[in-house]
């Protein structure tokens, strides 16, 4: 995120209609990434858990939105205390914010900043859901999101982006969320799956993606929305940095897709659509922290490294036996770490800040700071997420019954079926009941 531009002139910045309009559009683009992610993940699971996968992302649009208004924005971006959390009573319920009040040091209203950041807060827990496919009770997941954003995302966003946040003040570069979003979500995913365990039949039964077109659609929309995520994170266009970020986002993503496909072709013999989609997402993840400090050629290098390394990293789960179902760890954690550390090599010192990376004569200083940021967010998120999952598992239980998991979580948790292609209605009988007085005896229906 941009340092405040107060140094440009003595007088306070004024509201910019251009920046405000741009940021509202960027907010809408980032919002789109959550449904896009839902389709990206939804296509990768088997038919029987498609709807659950979609809903695990969609529910975040509800829960996190409400929490953000109530207290999330205050914890993430309120007045700093100790570098660890924020708190401003004006931000509670977004009720003490003036309509024309500007975000400190910027040319956009606080409301615009708050809604832009909200979209990040929604996406991050949704990212975790890909590791938990097929097996988590929906109520347990909703509770997990609520607790997780409260004690992990909101504080970590403060560390990384809040004025006074300890990583922010240390000079860790995270343009748009390599640490706060991707390492955070990836480490949380790892923490939760170590607690809840594998899907029934992991490594034994085939678990092929049921719809690769959905995966491609989701990946394409993620790529599109990511321009808002990345270029918007500069919060305005007064100095061209956001435009550099935009360019680097495109460049790294293209390079990463090529690298993943090349690896696959050499290693497994084919160029797959899943590889293209995964490579693109790996590139998007890796350029997220780095795109505001590297050159376009640097972005090609970062993207290529991310595509290659993530393509190799997704195989680790089979080796170590943890069921990272849709490779949240392999793509988001690994890609986030790569991008965050590569800033320490590829920062030119001529874009978002003067900090130079190793390849531009900056020595090891920036790399060291990046490593601290990576390690801190990874460790905190991993440990706290595992504890949250453990507490929920011991009380209400995280997983659905084994029988329900095998027969399909969609019917058990949502009482719906994703696809009905049969003219006979899949054997459904009975008729739709009117919403008006239907007397039921509260009979428990066997699913």
């Amino acid at each position, binding site marked *: 995120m941009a340092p405040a531009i107060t140094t440009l002139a003595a007088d306070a910045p004024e509201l910019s209609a251009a920046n405000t309009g741009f940021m509202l559009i960027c907010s809408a683009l980032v919002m789109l990434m959550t449904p896009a992610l839902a389709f990206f993940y939804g296509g990768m699971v088997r038919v029987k858990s498609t709807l659950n996968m979609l809903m695990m992302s969609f529910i975040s649009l509800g829960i996190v939105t409400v929490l953000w208004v109530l207290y999330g924005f205050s914890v993430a971006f309120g007045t700093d205390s100790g570098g660890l959390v924020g708190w401003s009573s004006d931000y509670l319920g977004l009720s003490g914010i003036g309509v024309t009040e500007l975000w400190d040091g910027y040319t956009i209203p606080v409301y615009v900043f708050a809604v832009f950041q909200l979209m990040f807060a929604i996406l991050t827990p949704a990212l975790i859901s890909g590791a938990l496919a097929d097996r988590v009770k929906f109520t347990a997941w909703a509770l997990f999101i609520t607790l997780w954003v409260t004690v992990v995302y909101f504080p970590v966003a403060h560390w990384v982006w809040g004025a006074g946040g300890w990583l922010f003040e240390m000079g860790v570069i995270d343009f748009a969320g390599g640490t706060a979003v991707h390492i955070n979500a990836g480490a949380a995913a790892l923490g939760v799956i170590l607690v809840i365990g594998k899907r029934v039949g992991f490594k034994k039964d*085939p678990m*092929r993606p049921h719809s690769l077109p959905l995966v491609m659609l989701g990946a394409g929309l993620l790529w599109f929305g990511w321009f808002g995520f990345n270029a918007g994170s500069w919060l305005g266009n007064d100095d061209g940095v956001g435009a550099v970020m935009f360019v680097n986002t495109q460049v790294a993503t293209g390079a990463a897709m090529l690298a993943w496909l090349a690896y*696959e072709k050499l290693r*497994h013999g*084919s160029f*797959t659509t*899943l590889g293209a989609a*995964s490579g693109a997402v790996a590139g998007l993840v890796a350029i997220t922290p780095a795109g505001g400090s590297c050159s376009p050629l640097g972005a090609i290098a970062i993207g290529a490294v991310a595509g290659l390394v993530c393509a190799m990293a997704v*195989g680790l789960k*089979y080796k170590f036996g943890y069921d990272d179902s849709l490779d949240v760890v392999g793509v988001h954690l690994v890609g986030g770490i790569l991008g965050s550390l590569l800033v320490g090599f590829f920062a030119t010192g001529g874009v978002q800040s003067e900090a130079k990376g190793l390849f531009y004569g900056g020595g090891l200083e920036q790399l060291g700071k990046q490593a601290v940021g990576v390690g801190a967010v990874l460790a905190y998120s991993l440990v706290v997420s595992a504890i949250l999952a453990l507490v929920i598992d011991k009380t209400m239980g995280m997983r659905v019954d084994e029988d329900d998991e095998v027969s399909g979580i969609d019917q058990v948790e949502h009482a719906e079926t994703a696809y009905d292609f049969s003219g006979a209605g899949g054997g459904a009988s009975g008729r739709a009941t009117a919403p008006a007085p239907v007397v039921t005896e509260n009979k428990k229906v066997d699913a």
Partner: protein
Amino acid sequence: MKLITAVVKPHRLDEIKEALQAFGVHGLTVTEASGYGRQRGHTEVYRGAEYTVDLVPKIRIEVLVEDEDAEQLIDVVVKAARTGKIGDGKVWSVPVETAVRVRTGERGPDAL
């Protein structure tokens, strides 16, 4: 009467239909099926994980005929279904006790 069943490659359906029409068959039933014979399956790779897909998509065509036409009709189906490659499928016949046309109640060969 005989029931001729053919489990063949999906893309041969049109040729088989045309050949049967030319032979004078008035009706048939087609269902999608999957299975394997000597062809076995193929391998798919998803993010490096290899899956052997051993059930291959096929179509199943069923035709009822009178006994004296059965052998000839089998030849017609086999000729239209053949590509000469592995996985072309199988055709077989079984005796049928009776058949009824639902609308009129006609029985036996009259129902065909």
